[in-house]
């Protein structure tokens, strides 16, 4: 079966999933106490019925729920995610504004954790039982057991306050108007801490996964065959063990895309990273329904995208499918 076909299949399934998500979340969110009008009235520090009524009409909240639902869904199927009355702009623009930041963050964290995870995992397996192995695995365990936000706070205190190596938050030096290389460097500096905090946990998982998987593959017959051919250990590990050992890791990575995107919410909040994760949390507290739904939709789409990517990787490694 061709790659294209596979991706198409995935996409087709994705659409249905996304629609379901829209429906579920729509009712979930409207079940929450309070509404945007209330929030804004509250913030205004003074309000009367007239004021709240105005807002409700403006937001279309005066219509019965099923009407609102119908309007929303029929909009979504035409890729119109609605209008954020709170932010005074179309949800789609709002999200597209924030999406790059999140993509940058999650992708980096994803890539970094996968890469380092595999490298360390290999290293650990190669030194099975020796102190190197113990060191790596205990490190992994440690990161795996540490609350993400906790790492974040500590990282900020250490690296940006005490050492001043990296900025504590944000994703660019505001108003610095860097260009070219400077801008890239600036972005990278800002990216480092958030990506690290978000990545560590997953790195830990991949380390453990890779290690066990490598050890398992090492027991397989074809590895013995390779030895019988007189291949050097290094070659065997690189050419025969690694690729086979990667398969389960890749699968796992795909399964965890959801957690990764979810984790972004915390990271973005702590690091003032202007991504959709934070947007989600803010629009939740503000009951900015459309935005919240939009963010959910997009982040779910991201998860699916991650899955497709890992799928492709898997297929690239494994000729059998």
């Amino acid at each position, binding site marked *: 079966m061709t790659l294209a076909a596979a991706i198409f299949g995935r996409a087709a399934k994705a659409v249905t999933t996304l629609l379901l998500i829209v429906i579920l979340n729509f009712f979930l969110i409207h079940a929450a106490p*309070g509404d945007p009008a209330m929030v804004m009235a509250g913030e205004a*520090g*003074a309000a009367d*019925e007239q004021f709240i009524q105005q807002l409700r009409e403006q937001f279309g909240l005066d219509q019965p729920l099923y009407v609102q639902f119908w309007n929303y869904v029929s909009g979504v199927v035409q890729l119109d995610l609605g209008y954020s009355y709170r932010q005074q702009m179309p949800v789609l623009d709002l999200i597209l504004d924030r999406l790059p930041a999140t993509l940058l963050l999650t992708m980096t964290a994803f890539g970094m954790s996968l890469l380092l995870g595999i490298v360390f995992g290999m290293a650990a397996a190669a030194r099975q039982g020796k102190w190197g192995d113990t060191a790596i695995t205990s490190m992994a365990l440690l990161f795996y057991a540490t609350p993400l936000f906790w790492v974040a706070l500590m990282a900020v205190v250490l690296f940006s*306050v005490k050492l001043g190596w990296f900025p504590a*938050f944000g994703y660019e030096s505001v108003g610095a108007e860097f260009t070219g290389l400077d801008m890239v460097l600036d972005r990278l500096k800002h990216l480092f801490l958030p990506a690290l905090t978000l990545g560590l946990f997953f790195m830990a998982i991949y380390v453990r996964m890779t290690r066990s998987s490598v050890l398992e593959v090492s027991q397989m017959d074809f590895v013995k065959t390779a030895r019988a051919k007189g291949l050097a250990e290094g070659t065997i590990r690189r050419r025969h063990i690694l690729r086979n050992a990667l398969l389960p890791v890749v699968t796992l990575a795909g399964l965890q895309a959801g957690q990764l995107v979810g984790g972004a919410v915390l990271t973005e909040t702590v690091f003032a990273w202007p991504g959709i994760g*934070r947007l989600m949390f803010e629009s939740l507290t503000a009951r900015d329904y459309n935005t919240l739904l939009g963010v959910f939709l997009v982040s779910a789409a991201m998860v699916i995208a991650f899955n497709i990517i890992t799928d492709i990787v898997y297929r690239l490694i494994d000729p059998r499918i």
Partner: protein
Amino acid sequence: MKNLFTASLLSLGLAFPAMAQDAGGRLDIVVQPEPPSLMLGLVQNGPTQLVAGDIYESLLRYDTDLNPQPSLAKSWEISDDGMTYTFNLHEGVTWHDGEPFTSEDVVFSVDTFLRETHARLRVSLQHVDTITAPDDHTVVFKMKNPFGPFIGVFEAGTMPMVPKHIYEGTDFANNPANNTPIGTGPFKFKEWQKGSYIHLVKNEDYYLDGQPYLDEVYYRVIPDAASRAVAFENGEVDVLPGGSVENWDVKRLTEMDNVCSTGKGWEYFAPHAMAWMNNREGPTANKNFRKAVMYAMDREFVRDVIWNGFGKVATSPVSSKTNFYTDDTIMYDQDVEKAKELLAEAGYDGEPVRILPLPYGETWQRWAEAMKQNLKEVGINSEVVATDVAGWNQKQAEWDFDIAFTYLYQYGDPALGVARSYLSSNIAKGSPWNNVAGYANEEVDAMFAEAAVAPTTEARQEIYTEIQKQLVDDVPVAWLLEIEFPTIYRCDVQDLVTTAIGVNDGLRDAWIKQ
């Protein structure tokens, strides 16, 4: 020490700045949370006014003793019968898009725009009969009846001037111009990087020559309180407006060198922390129970521990910072025994009461927890209800609480800031911020009505003293603290706070010592 110094310097600096100012420089200020919109005519919440206060102006400003000062109006007079207010506007004032600012804009703003959009101003405008513009630079307000506090409403957040040529005949709420606000203020809107920062630049054609002094201002959005503190420490930002960092950090930050702080700039709002108690049902419906609550609370502890010693225990519905305050009322100092007696009288059966904390950060959480403990010690069972901003507004608007924390602005006059919480006419289920406690007392209603329109200050004082005595005895709400939100900034930032509205009143006079 520094506080005192800057304070005195400010009081000089107010009308005619003391020393020569250096021009230029950039100021980074924290804004939290990110404002929903910068159109001050539509949204008047704190963050919006903080930023939009630089863009929009009103006719007047108020010094830290709440005396009117010129702004867009260079002079004004009030007829002796208090029925006519006449304002003479500065000449040569232009909107940021170059259009001239005239009295027509004032009439449009107040009579058309704000009447529709501004809930709080609407209350005051009930007393206004007509607003007219005899010529381009004169505006005349004719009253239905004398309304003492009226001179106090010409502040940017209460009566922002909006451009007629842009809004006339449009759907105000959805006018695309709302995203690129046009005002007359010292700074122009440049860019809004959502979730990151808002960038304002100097208004070159500002009508006061030489002003503003700053070239540009960045309002930085940093969602996490701890990060905001860090940002100030690293010098990422120069100003932390009141309440933008948790109190525990205030102490630490103000102890850093080259850091100043002032409690000034909140006189107009005079935030008054209190807890609505449900006067309709549950244990709190019983006056003695409410008194018991007052006696149970250790408000000094809260001031010293949770607010780091900032602020002053509130003894009355009227803030001691504003006019018409009296201390000739019952003083509820913590007294566990008395509280227990009152509970016995009230026949309290141990039914738990629901405490609704204000979802504005850790401080208020801790406060609720402290109250819970205080109540526990006198034998009142309670549980803290967890909810977010939306849920909180919902619950208090729907009267779904026993005790609900809040803080209200005084707006410089009891008629504007205080009466609204006690008038029985102001009980309306479904909207927050009115008489949520559900206190109803004809006498008090009558007295408030009288006080609002009483001709002389003395007359008003008399009535308000009466009101305070009565209320403090009825304890419809538990008054907690006259909050002080210290503004923290680098000492080389000068004239940051020059009015009773503080940083929210714009950075017209602010400059950085080079």
